[in-house]
Protein backbone atom coordinates (compact mmCIF):
# COMPACT_ATOMS: atom_id res chain seq x y z
CA UNK A 1 0.00 0.00 0.00
CA UNK A 2 2.70 2.43 0.92
CA UNK A 3 5.05 1.37 -1.85
CA UNK A 4 3.32 2.59 -4.95
CA UNK A 5 3.73 6.29 -4.88
CA UNK A 6 7.12 6.20 -3.22
CA UNK A 7 8.71 4.18 -6.00
CA UNK A 8 9.03 6.87 -8.65
CA UNK A 9 9.93 5.83 -12.15
CA UNK A 10 13.13 7.07 -13.71
CA UNK A 11 12.06 8.81 -16.93
CA UNK A 12 14.97 7.56 -18.99
CA UNK A 13 14.43 4.03 -17.82
CA UNK A 14 10.73 4.08 -18.68
CA UNK A 15 11.51 4.58 -22.36
CA UNK A 16 13.39 1.29 -22.29
CA UNK A 17 10.16 -0.62 -21.62
CA UNK A 18 9.61 -3.29 -18.99
CA UNK A 19 7.95 -0.88 -16.57
CA UNK A 20 4.32 -0.23 -15.92
CA UNK A 21 3.49 3.47 -15.96
CA UNK A 22 1.09 2.83 -13.11
CA UNK A 23 3.42 0.79 -10.88
CA UNK A 24 0.85 -1.95 -10.55
CA UNK A 25 0.79 -5.49 -11.78
CA UNK A 26 -1.14 -6.49 -14.87
CA UNK A 27 -3.77 -8.39 -12.89
CA UNK A 28 -4.59 -5.52 -10.60
CA UNK A 29 -4.85 -3.05 -13.47
CA UNK A 30 -7.21 -5.35 -15.33
CA UNK A 31 -9.32 -5.77 -12.22
CA UNK A 32 -9.67 -2.01 -12.06
CA UNK A 33 -10.65 -1.81 -15.73
CA UNK A 34 -13.23 -4.52 -15.20
CA UNK A 35 -14.63 -2.66 -12.21
CA UNK A 36 -14.95 0.55 -14.23
CA UNK A 37 -17.00 -1.26 -16.87
CA UNK A 38 -19.11 -3.00 -14.25
CA UNK A 39 -19.66 0.31 -12.48
CA UNK A 40 -20.92 1.76 -15.76
CA UNK A 41 -23.42 -1.10 -16.01
CA UNK A 42 -24.76 -0.38 -12.55
CA UNK A 43 -24.68 3.34 -13.27
CA UNK A 44 -26.74 2.68 -16.39
CA UNK A 45 -29.27 0.66 -14.42
CA UNK A 46 -29.70 3.32 -11.76
CA UNK A 47 -29.98 6.07 -14.38
CA UNK A 48 -32.62 3.99 -16.20
CA UNK A 49 -34.47 3.68 -12.90
CA UNK A 50 -34.24 7.45 -12.44
CA UNK A 51 -35.47 8.02 -15.98
CA UNK A 52 -38.49 5.80 -15.46
CA UNK A 53 -39.30 7.43 -12.19
CA UNK A 54 -38.91 10.89 -13.65
CA UNK A 55 -41.28 10.18 -16.54
CA UNK A 56 -43.80 8.37 -14.37
CA UNK A 57 -46.93 10.41 -13.91
CA UNK A 58 -48.27 9.56 -10.47
CA UNK A 59 -47.17 8.43 -7.05
CA UNK A 60 -43.96 6.42 -7.08
CA UNK A 61 -43.65 3.96 -4.15
CA UNK A 62 -41.89 5.33 -1.08
CA UNK A 63 -38.98 3.34 0.31
CA UNK A 64 -39.83 3.72 3.97
CA UNK A 65 -43.45 2.67 3.32
CA UNK A 66 -42.52 -0.33 1.20
CA UNK A 67 -39.59 -1.69 3.18
CA UNK A 68 -40.59 -1.60 6.82
CA UNK A 69 -40.72 -5.23 7.87
CA UNK A 70 -38.27 -7.18 10.02
CA UNK A 71 -37.98 -10.95 10.34
CA UNK A 72 -39.94 -12.21 13.42
CA UNK A 73 -40.90 -8.68 14.46
CA UNK A 74 -43.40 -7.72 11.79
CA UNK A 75 -44.03 -4.26 10.39
CA UNK A 76 -43.37 -0.71 11.47
CA UNK A 77 -39.60 -0.48 11.13
CA UNK A 78 -39.01 1.75 8.12
CA UNK A 79 -35.73 0.94 6.34
CA UNK A 80 -34.23 -0.77 9.39
CA UNK A 81 -33.77 -4.07 7.59
CA UNK A 82 -32.09 -2.44 4.58
CA UNK A 83 -29.86 -0.48 6.93
CA UNK A 84 -28.91 -3.72 8.63
CA UNK A 85 -28.02 -5.25 5.25
CA UNK A 86 -25.92 -2.19 4.46
CA UNK A 87 -24.16 -2.52 7.78
CA UNK A 88 -23.44 -6.22 7.19
CA UNK A 89 -21.90 -5.40 3.83
CA UNK A 90 -19.82 -2.55 5.25
CA UNK A 91 -18.51 -4.78 8.02
CA UNK A 92 -17.59 -7.51 5.57
CA UNK A 93 -15.80 -4.89 3.50
CA UNK A 94 -13.84 -3.92 6.60
CA UNK A 95 -12.83 -7.50 7.36
CA UNK A 96 -11.73 -7.82 3.73
CA UNK A 97 -9.52 -4.75 3.93
CA UNK A 98 -8.05 -6.16 7.16
CA UNK A 99 -7.28 -9.41 5.31
CA UNK A 100 -5.49 -7.43 2.61
CA UNK A 101 -3.55 -5.52 5.27
CA UNK A 102 -2.52 -8.79 6.94
CA UNK A 103 -1.41 -10.04 3.53
CA UNK A 104 0.89 -7.07 3.17
CA UNK A 105 2.61 -8.15 6.40
CA UNK A 106 2.79 -11.77 5.14
CA UNK A 107 0.65 -12.68 8.15
CA UNK A 108 -1.01 -15.87 6.91
CA UNK A 109 -3.01 -16.42 10.10
CA UNK A 110 -4.42 -12.90 9.91
CA UNK A 111 -5.43 -13.37 6.27
CA UNK A 112 -7.20 -16.62 7.11
CA UNK A 113 -9.05 -15.08 10.05
CA UNK A 114 -10.28 -11.99 8.23
CA UNK A 115 -11.10 -13.71 4.96
CA UNK A 116 -13.21 -16.24 6.80
CA UNK A 117 -15.07 -13.39 8.49
CA UNK A 118 -15.60 -11.77 5.08
CA UNK A 119 -17.06 -14.96 3.62
CA UNK A 120 -19.41 -15.34 6.56
CA UNK A 121 -20.51 -11.71 6.15
CA UNK A 122 -21.13 -12.38 2.46
CA UNK A 123 -23.36 -15.34 3.26
CA UNK A 124 -25.27 -13.21 5.75
CA UNK A 125 -25.89 -10.57 3.12
CA UNK A 126 -27.02 -13.05 0.47
CA UNK A 127 -29.31 -14.63 3.06
CA UNK A 128 -30.77 -11.27 4.02
CA UNK A 129 -31.44 -10.49 0.43
CA UNK A 130 -33.21 -13.82 -0.02
CA UNK A 131 -35.46 -12.93 2.90
CA UNK A 132 -36.12 -9.48 1.49
CA UNK A 133 -37.03 -10.90 -1.91
CA UNK A 134 -39.29 -13.47 -0.34
CA UNK A 135 -41.03 -10.76 1.66
CA UNK A 136 -41.34 -8.53 -1.40
CA UNK A 137 -42.82 -11.36 -3.49
CA UNK A 138 -45.27 -12.55 -0.83
CA UNK A 139 -46.26 -9.05 0.10
CA UNK A 140 -47.96 -7.50 3.07
CA UNK A 141 -50.88 -8.94 5.00
CA UNK A 142 -53.28 -6.30 3.72
CA UNK A 143 -52.18 -6.04 0.10
CA UNK A 144 -53.21 -3.20 -2.19
CA UNK A 145 -56.87 -2.59 -2.91
CA UNK A 146 -58.76 -0.96 -5.73
CA UNK A 147 -61.63 1.07 -4.40
CA UNK A 148 -65.06 1.38 -6.01
CA UNK A 149 -64.32 4.84 -7.46
CA UNK A 150 -61.31 3.53 -9.42
CA UNK A 151 -58.68 4.76 -7.01
CA UNK A 152 -56.15 2.37 -5.51
CA UNK A 153 -54.63 2.36 -2.06
CA UNK A 154 -52.07 0.58 0.07
CA UNK A 155 -53.01 -0.17 3.66
CA UNK A 156 -51.37 0.62 6.98
CA UNK A 157 -52.33 -0.74 10.35
CA UNK A 158 -52.27 -4.03 12.23
CA UNK A 159 -53.81 -7.00 10.45
CA UNK A 160 -56.18 -8.98 12.70
CA UNK A 161 -54.75 -12.43 13.29
CA UNK A 162 -56.57 -15.31 11.59
CA UNK A 163 -57.15 -18.04 14.20
CA UNK A 164 -59.12 -20.66 12.30
CA UNK A 165 -61.82 -21.35 9.74
CA UNK A 166 -65.02 -22.74 11.19
CA UNK A 167 -66.69 -25.08 8.67
CA UNK A 168 -70.25 -24.11 7.75
CA UNK A 169 -70.66 -26.29 4.66
CA UNK A 170 -68.36 -29.28 4.36
CA UNK A 171 -66.31 -29.69 1.17
CA UNK A 172 -64.51 -32.66 -0.34
CA UNK A 173 -61.53 -32.59 2.04
CA UNK A 174 -62.77 -30.58 4.98
CA UNK A 175 -63.63 -31.63 8.54
CA UNK A 176 -67.28 -31.93 9.47
CA UNK A 177 -69.56 -28.93 9.90
CA UNK A 178 -68.81 -26.96 13.03
CA UNK A 179 -65.22 -28.16 13.30
CA UNK A 180 -62.20 -25.94 12.88
CA UNK A 181 -59.61 -25.77 10.12
CA UNK A 182 -56.33 -24.55 11.63
CA UNK A 183 -52.75 -24.29 10.46
CA UNK A 184 -52.26 -27.86 11.70
CA UNK A 185 -54.94 -29.60 9.67
CA UNK A 186 -55.26 -27.35 6.61
CA UNK A 187 -54.67 -29.09 3.26
CA UNK A 188 -51.24 -28.98 1.59
CA UNK A 189 -52.73 -27.13 -1.33
CA UNK A 190 -53.70 -24.17 0.86
CA UNK A 191 -50.48 -24.14 2.85
CA UNK A 192 -51.60 -22.07 5.80
CA UNK A 193 -54.58 -19.99 6.86
CA UNK A 194 -53.08 -16.69 5.74
CA UNK A 195 -52.19 -18.10 2.35
CA UNK A 196 -55.65 -19.57 1.88
CA UNK A 197 -57.18 -16.26 2.95
CA UNK A 198 -55.09 -14.24 0.48
CA UNK A 199 -55.81 -16.66 -2.30
CA UNK A 200 -59.54 -16.53 -1.67
CA UNK A 201 -59.44 -12.73 -1.52
CA UNK A 202 -57.69 -12.47 -4.88
CA UNK A 203 -60.27 -14.75 -6.47
CA UNK A 204 -63.21 -12.95 -4.90
CA UNK A 205 -64.10 -15.91 -2.68
CA UNK A 206 -64.64 -13.93 0.50
CA UNK A 207 -67.94 -12.60 1.72
CA UNK A 208 -68.66 -10.12 4.49
CA UNK A 209 -68.16 -6.55 5.52
CA UNK A 210 -65.44 -6.41 8.16
CA UNK A 211 -62.52 -8.29 9.65
CA UNK A 212 -64.49 -10.35 12.16
CA UNK A 213 -67.43 -11.15 9.92
CA UNK A 214 -66.07 -12.96 6.87
CA UNK A 215 -66.96 -16.17 5.09
CA UNK A 216 -64.43 -17.97 2.98
CA UNK A 217 -65.03 -20.36 0.07
CA UNK A 218 -62.21 -22.84 -0.26
CA UNK A 219 -61.23 -24.75 -3.39
CA UNK A 220 -62.81 -28.04 -2.39
CA UNK A 221 -66.20 -26.42 -1.93
CA UNK A 222 -65.87 -25.83 1.78
CA UNK A 223 -67.58 -22.74 3.10
CA UNK A 224 -66.24 -21.54 6.44
CA UNK A 225 -66.50 -18.68 8.86
CA UNK A 226 -63.18 -16.87 9.35
CA UNK A 227 -62.35 -16.58 13.06
CA UNK A 228 -60.25 -13.44 13.30
CA UNK A 229 -59.26 -10.66 15.60
CA UNK A 230 -60.27 -7.16 14.49
CA UNK A 231 -57.79 -5.03 12.55
CA UNK A 232 -56.26 -2.13 14.41
CA UNK A 233 -55.70 1.41 13.11
CA UNK A 234 -56.58 0.52 9.56
CA UNK A 235 -55.70 3.36 7.19
CA UNK A 236 -55.90 3.55 3.42
CA UNK A 237 -53.07 5.44 1.74
CA UNK A 238 -54.46 6.39 -1.65
CA UNK A 239 -51.79 6.07 -4.33
CA UNK A 240 -53.86 6.54 -7.48
CA UNK A 241 -56.74 8.98 -7.46
CA UNK A 242 -60.24 7.95 -8.49
CA UNK A 243 -63.40 9.93 -9.01
CA UNK A 244 -63.95 10.31 -5.27
CA UNK A 245 -60.71 9.91 -3.35
CA UNK A 246 -57.63 12.03 -3.93
CA UNK A 247 -54.06 10.85 -3.55
CA UNK A 248 -52.82 10.85 0.07
CA UNK A 249 -49.85 13.10 0.68
CA UNK A 250 -46.83 11.29 2.12
CA UNK A 251 -46.11 14.29 4.32
CA UNK A 252 -49.58 14.43 5.86
CA UNK A 253 -51.24 11.41 7.47
CA UNK A 254 -54.53 13.33 7.70
CA UNK A 255 -55.02 12.88 3.96
CA UNK A 256 -55.30 9.10 4.36
CA UNK A 257 -58.71 7.45 4.60
CA UNK A 258 -59.15 6.48 8.27
CA UNK A 259 -61.56 5.05 10.79
CA UNK A 260 -64.69 3.08 9.95
CA UNK A 261 -64.75 4.44 6.44
CA UNK A 262 -61.38 2.79 5.80
CA UNK A 263 -62.59 -0.60 7.10
CA UNK A 264 -65.77 -0.41 5.07
CA UNK A 265 -63.96 0.48 1.83
CA UNK A 266 -61.20 -2.04 2.43
CA UNK A 267 -63.52 -5.03 2.96
CA UNK A 268 -65.74 -3.94 0.12
CA UNK A 269 -62.71 -4.17 -2.18
CA UNK A 270 -61.36 -7.40 -0.66
CA UNK A 271 -64.68 -9.22 -0.93
CA UNK A 272 -64.97 -8.05 -4.54
CA UNK A 273 -61.59 -9.62 -5.33
CA UNK A 274 -60.02 -6.24 -6.05
CA UNK A 275 -56.85 -6.82 -4.09
CA UNK A 276 -53.24 -7.62 -5.03
CA UNK A 277 -50.74 -9.23 -2.69
CA UNK A 278 -46.99 -9.11 -3.19
CA UNK A 279 -45.21 -8.89 -6.49
CA UNK A 280 -44.67 -10.84 -9.65
CA UNK A 281 -43.51 -9.95 -13.16
CA UNK A 282 -46.87 -8.48 -14.19
CA UNK A 283 -48.01 -6.54 -11.18
CA UNK A 284 -47.13 -5.68 -7.62
CA UNK A 285 -48.88 -4.18 -4.65
CA UNK A 286 -46.27 -1.47 -4.11
CA UNK A 287 -46.76 0.60 -7.24
CA UNK A 288 -46.27 0.57 -10.99
CA UNK A 289 -45.08 -2.55 -12.75
CA UNK A 290 -41.69 -1.02 -13.56
CA UNK A 291 -41.01 -0.53 -9.86
CA UNK A 292 -41.15 -4.26 -9.21
CA UNK A 293 -39.09 -5.01 -12.28
CA UNK A 294 -36.36 -2.56 -11.33
CA UNK A 295 -36.36 -3.94 -7.81
CA UNK A 296 -35.84 -7.46 -9.10
CA UNK A 297 -33.27 -6.49 -11.68
CA UNK A 298 -31.12 -4.06 -9.71
CA UNK A 299 -31.06 -5.87 -6.38
CA UNK A 300 -30.93 -9.20 -8.21
CA UNK A 301 -27.97 -8.16 -10.34
CA UNK A 302 -26.25 -6.84 -7.25
CA UNK A 303 -27.11 -9.98 -5.28
CA UNK A 304 -25.62 -12.06 -8.08
CA UNK A 305 -22.43 -10.00 -7.77
CA UNK A 306 -22.35 -10.63 -4.03
CA UNK A 307 -22.90 -14.33 -4.62
CA UNK A 308 -20.08 -14.56 -7.17
CA UNK A 309 -17.94 -12.47 -4.82
CA UNK A 310 -18.48 -15.04 -2.07
CA UNK A 311 -17.56 -17.86 -4.48
CA UNK A 312 -14.37 -16.07 -5.59
CA UNK A 313 -13.52 -15.32 -1.96
CA UNK A 314 -13.89 -18.99 -1.09
CA UNK A 315 -11.61 -20.02 -3.96
CA UNK A 316 -8.94 -17.54 -2.87
CA UNK A 317 -9.46 -18.59 0.74
CA UNK A 318 -8.63 -22.18 -0.22
CA UNK A 319 -5.48 -20.88 -1.92
CA UNK A 320 -4.54 -19.03 1.26
CA UNK A 321 -5.12 -22.14 3.37
CA UNK A 322 -2.92 -24.20 1.08
CA UNK A 323 -0.19 -21.58 1.32
CA UNK A 324 -0.12 -20.85 -2.43
CA UNK A 325 0.30 -17.10 -1.97
CA UNK A 326 2.68 -17.41 0.93
CA UNK A 327 5.03 -19.43 -1.28
CA UNK A 328 4.61 -16.86 -4.04
CA UNK A 329 5.88 -14.19 -1.67
CA UNK A 330 2.88 -11.88 -1.80
CA UNK A 331 -0.88 -11.93 -1.23
CA UNK A 332 -1.89 -9.94 -4.26
CA UNK A 333 -4.66 -12.38 -5.14
CA UNK A 334 -6.33 -11.46 -1.86
CA UNK A 335 -5.96 -7.81 -2.78
CA UNK A 336 -7.59 -8.37 -6.18
CA UNK A 337 -10.55 -10.30 -4.86
CA UNK A 338 -10.73 -7.60 -2.19
CA UNK A 339 -11.09 -4.94 -4.89
CA UNK A 340 -14.06 -6.83 -6.32
CA UNK A 341 -15.58 -7.27 -2.88
CA UNK A 342 -15.28 -3.57 -2.03
CA UNK A 343 -16.83 -2.75 -5.37
CA UNK A 344 -19.88 -4.81 -4.45
CA UNK A 345 -20.15 -2.77 -1.26
CA UNK A 346 -19.72 0.43 -3.24
CA UNK A 347 -22.58 -0.45 -5.58
CA UNK A 348 -24.82 -1.22 -2.62
CA UNK A 349 -24.15 2.23 -1.16
CA UNK A 350 -25.61 3.74 -4.33
CA UNK A 351 -28.50 1.27 -4.60
CA UNK A 352 -29.34 2.00 -0.96
CA UNK A 353 -29.55 5.73 -1.59
CA UNK A 354 -31.23 5.83 -4.98
CA UNK A 355 -33.56 2.86 -4.69
CA UNK A 356 -34.48 2.83 -1.01
CA UNK A 357 -33.93 6.31 0.39
CA UNK A 358 -34.84 8.80 -2.29
Amino acid at each position, binding site marked *: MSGHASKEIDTTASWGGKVSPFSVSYGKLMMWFFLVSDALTFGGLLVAYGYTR*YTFDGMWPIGEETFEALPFLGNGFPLVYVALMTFILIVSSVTMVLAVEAGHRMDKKGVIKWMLATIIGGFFFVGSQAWEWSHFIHGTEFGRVQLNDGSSAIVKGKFGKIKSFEVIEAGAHSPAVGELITNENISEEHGDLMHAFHHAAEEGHLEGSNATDLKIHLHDGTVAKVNREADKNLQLVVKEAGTQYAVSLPSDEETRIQGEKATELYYEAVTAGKVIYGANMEQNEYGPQQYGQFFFFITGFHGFHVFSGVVINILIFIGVLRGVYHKRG*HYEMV*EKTGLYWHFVDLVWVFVFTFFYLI
Partner: protein
Amino acid sequence: MERDDVIEYSLDTHHSEEEGKKIRKKIWFVTLLLTVVTAVEVLLGAFVKQGSSMWTTVKIIFIVLTLLKAGYIVLTFMHLGDEKKALKWIILLPYFIFIVYLMFIAFNEATAVGAEM
Protein backbone atom coordinates in the same frame (compact mmCIF):
# COMPACT_ATOMS: atom_id res chain seq x y z
CA MET B 1 12.84 -20.69 -17.08
CA GLU B 2 12.88 -17.61 -14.88
CA ARG B 3 11.69 -14.52 -16.70
CA ASP B 4 13.74 -11.37 -16.22
CA ASP B 5 11.45 -9.01 -18.12
CA VAL B 6 8.70 -8.88 -15.50
CA ILE B 7 8.90 -6.45 -12.64
CA GLU B 8 7.07 -7.75 -9.58
CA TYR B 9 5.04 -4.74 -8.54
CA SER B 10 3.11 -6.96 -6.19
CA LEU B 11 6.08 -6.97 -3.81
CA ASP B 12 6.01 -3.17 -3.49
CA THR B 13 2.89 -3.35 -1.43
CA HIS B 14 4.47 -5.06 1.57
CA HIS B 15 4.65 -3.05 4.75
CA SER B 16 6.03 -3.39 8.23
CA GLU B 17 4.27 -4.05 11.54
CA GLU B 18 4.32 -0.36 12.57
CA GLU B 19 2.92 0.80 9.26
CA GLY B 20 0.27 -1.89 9.58
CA LYS B 21 -0.80 -0.49 12.92
CA LYS B 22 -1.31 2.95 11.42
CA ILE B 23 -3.23 1.52 8.48
CA ARG B 24 -5.49 -0.51 10.75
CA LYS B 25 -6.25 2.55 12.80
CA LYS B 26 -7.36 4.33 9.65
CA ILE B 27 -9.49 1.35 8.63
CA TRP B 28 -11.36 1.40 11.96
CA PHE B 29 -11.85 5.13 11.68
CA VAL B 30 -13.40 4.74 8.22
CA THR B 31 -15.61 1.90 9.53
CA LEU B 32 -16.97 4.12 12.25
CA LEU B 33 -17.55 6.93 9.80
CA LEU B 34 -19.42 4.74 7.30
CA THR B 35 -21.61 3.31 10.05
CA VAL B 36 -22.49 6.71 11.45
CA VAL B 37 -23.27 8.10 8.00
CA THR B 38 -25.57 5.13 7.23
CA ALA B 39 -27.34 5.58 10.57
CA VAL B 40 -27.85 9.28 9.86
CA GLU B 41 -29.27 8.46 6.43
CA VAL B 42 -31.74 5.97 7.83
CA LEU B 43 -32.88 8.37 10.56
CA LEU B 44 -33.38 11.16 8.03
CA GLY B 45 -35.27 8.75 5.75
CA ALA B 46 -37.51 7.57 8.56
CA PHE B 47 -38.32 10.96 10.04
CA VAL B 48 -38.46 13.35 7.11
CA LYS B 49 -41.45 12.59 4.92
CA GLN B 50 -41.30 12.83 1.17
CA GLY B 51 -43.01 15.91 -0.11
CA SER B 52 -42.45 17.87 3.09
CA SER B 53 -40.70 21.23 2.94
CA MET B 54 -37.43 19.69 4.15
CA TRP B 55 -37.43 16.93 1.55
CA THR B 56 -35.35 18.63 -1.16
CA THR B 57 -32.66 19.51 1.36
CA VAL B 58 -32.66 15.98 2.70
CA LYS B 59 -32.35 14.57 -0.82
CA ILE B 60 -29.27 16.70 -1.41
CA ILE B 61 -27.85 15.59 1.96
CA PHE B 62 -28.43 11.95 0.93
CA ILE B 63 -26.50 12.42 -2.29
CA VAL B 64 -23.63 14.25 -0.58
CA LEU B 65 -23.39 11.56 2.13
CA THR B 66 -23.48 8.82 -0.50
CA LEU B 67 -20.63 10.40 -2.41
CA LEU B 68 -18.73 10.77 0.86
CA LYS B 69 -19.19 7.08 1.63
CA ALA B 70 -18.24 6.11 -1.93
CA GLY B 71 -15.14 8.28 -1.71
CA TYR B 72 -13.96 6.61 1.50
CA ILE B 73 -14.61 3.14 0.11
CA VAL B 74 -12.76 3.76 -3.14
CA LEU B 75 -9.85 5.76 -1.76
CA THR B 76 -9.25 3.90 1.51
CA PHE B 77 -10.70 0.40 1.23
CA MET B 78 -9.76 -0.03 -2.41
CA HIS B 79 -6.46 1.85 -1.85
CA LEU B 80 -6.99 4.00 -4.92
CA GLY B 81 -5.82 6.99 -2.91
CA ASP B 82 -2.43 5.33 -2.51
CA GLU B 83 -1.96 4.48 -6.16
CA LYS B 84 -0.13 6.63 -8.65
CA LYS B 85 -1.94 9.75 -9.79
CA ALA B 86 -2.00 8.51 -13.39
CA LEU B 87 -3.79 5.32 -12.37
CA LYS B 88 -6.22 7.19 -10.17
CA TRP B 89 -7.33 9.42 -13.03
CA ILE B 90 -7.43 6.71 -15.66
CA ILE B 91 -9.98 4.95 -13.45
CA LEU B 92 -12.02 7.91 -12.25
CA LEU B 93 -12.04 10.30 -15.18
CA PRO B 94 -13.61 8.07 -17.88
CA TYR B 95 -16.20 6.96 -15.38
CA PHE B 96 -17.17 10.47 -14.37
CA ILE B 97 -17.31 11.69 -17.95
CA PHE B 98 -19.58 8.85 -19.08
CA ILE B 99 -21.84 8.76 -16.07
CA VAL B 100 -22.34 12.52 -15.87
CA TYR B 101 -23.09 12.59 -19.59
CA LEU B 102 -25.51 9.69 -19.26
CA MET B 103 -27.27 11.39 -16.37
CA PHE B 104 -27.45 14.63 -18.30
CA ILE B 105 -29.05 13.13 -21.40
CA ALA B 106 -31.33 10.74 -19.51
CA PHE B 107 -32.77 13.30 -17.11
CA ASN B 108 -33.05 15.98 -19.76
CA GLU B 109 -34.93 13.55 -21.93
CA ALA B 110 -37.04 12.39 -19.00
CA THR B 111 -38.14 15.95 -18.31
CA ALA B 112 -39.14 16.39 -21.94
CA VAL B 113 -40.99 13.06 -22.08
CA GLY B 114 -42.64 13.80 -18.73
CA ALA B 115 -43.88 17.13 -20.06
CA GLU B 116 -45.44 15.38 -23.09
CA MET B 117 -47.50 13.04 -20.93
